[in-house]
């Protein structure tokens, strides 16, 4: 059994929010995903990935902004890790 990982970045903290970014890592070696290899997301929402058999195993925490840095932007906030075993 080898792990395939799908990371979806969503527009809000809700799992059924639209996908704004995505990454894939393939432990089977069958594919070799990399940066900038596609313009269309694999799913429209996080729930769409569940419906296709991906298992959610990590979701980004909701962390309040640090005082004094409320308007700073940095990494994408709403990151969800999924896996499939094959």
């Amino acid at each position, binding site marked *: 059994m080898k792990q395939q990982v799908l*990371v979806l*970045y*969503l*527009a*809000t903290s809700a799992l059924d*929010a639209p*996908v*704004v*970014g*995505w*990454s*894939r890592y393939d432990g089977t070696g069958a594919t*070799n*995903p*990399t*940066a*900038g*290899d*596609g*313009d269309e*997301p694999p799913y429209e929402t996080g729930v769409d990935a569940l419906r296709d058999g991906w298992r959610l195993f990590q979701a980004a925490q909701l962390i309040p902004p640090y005082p004094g840095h409320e*308007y*700073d*932007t*940095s*990494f*994408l*906030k*709403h990151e969800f890790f999924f896996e499939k075993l094959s």
Partner: protein
Amino acid sequence: METTLLSSVRVAGFVAAGYLRLDAVVPDELNERAIDVLEAGIPRAPYGTPVRTAFPGGSFARRLIEVPAVAGALRSLVGPDPLVDHHAVHIREPRNGHAQPLHADAIIDTRADAFDVQLMYYPHEVSADMGGTLVVPGSHLRRVNESDTGRYQNLRGQTRLTCPAGTVMLLHHGIWHGGRRNDSDVRRYMFKIRFNPTVPQVRLWDTSDLADPAVLDELGRRFPWYEQATGRLEIHNRALMWRAMTADASFDVDYWATRVTNRPGRAA
């Protein structure tokens, strides 16, 4: 030297997207020489060398940045007499198996009232499979350190550069970008120069259209990869950058910055 300054609308587009592109502005005569020149290498100068010293008159690099459209755009963004931070030739080999991780150059750089500009020059046509630079519009104000963004492979609305020969891109120092995997049989060349300003970056462009409503339209643009809430902060932060670049402390986009600083009767 003839220059073509940018309009306010174009500079606002740069402030929103973090880059602008000048398609096919470099003449064929220079493009045709470029590969040999880049292969031979362009002599390095110490960090922070004035342009006239780093690139002597008549040299290839000097001629490149004196192309009127390039000179005007550079002057509009970094002003006269910038320093050459460094320059480098980037080559994506044919059928190379990997892309660069998405990154911002140098180290985390939080300047709100100054910025460096990176020039990227593509001497030949870049087709979709040649690994043209991946650029994420509107990422330049995010505070990240270099390749800490490497986890992100694709973001909605990303630009996978394809361009005609002689195209120049000018990028804010903070833009997220990366050289893509070259799946073609052709070597892909890009020449990069980073410029540091030596003057305050205030109203350096042709400001005759500063009141054009299209300026606000540009500064209010959202990009498809923005999260719903954080996207609002991007526009707020752009408004602050525009305030710095126009020396107009009251400027705002859709009241974002004004509302949250309104404290009647309170001292700072």
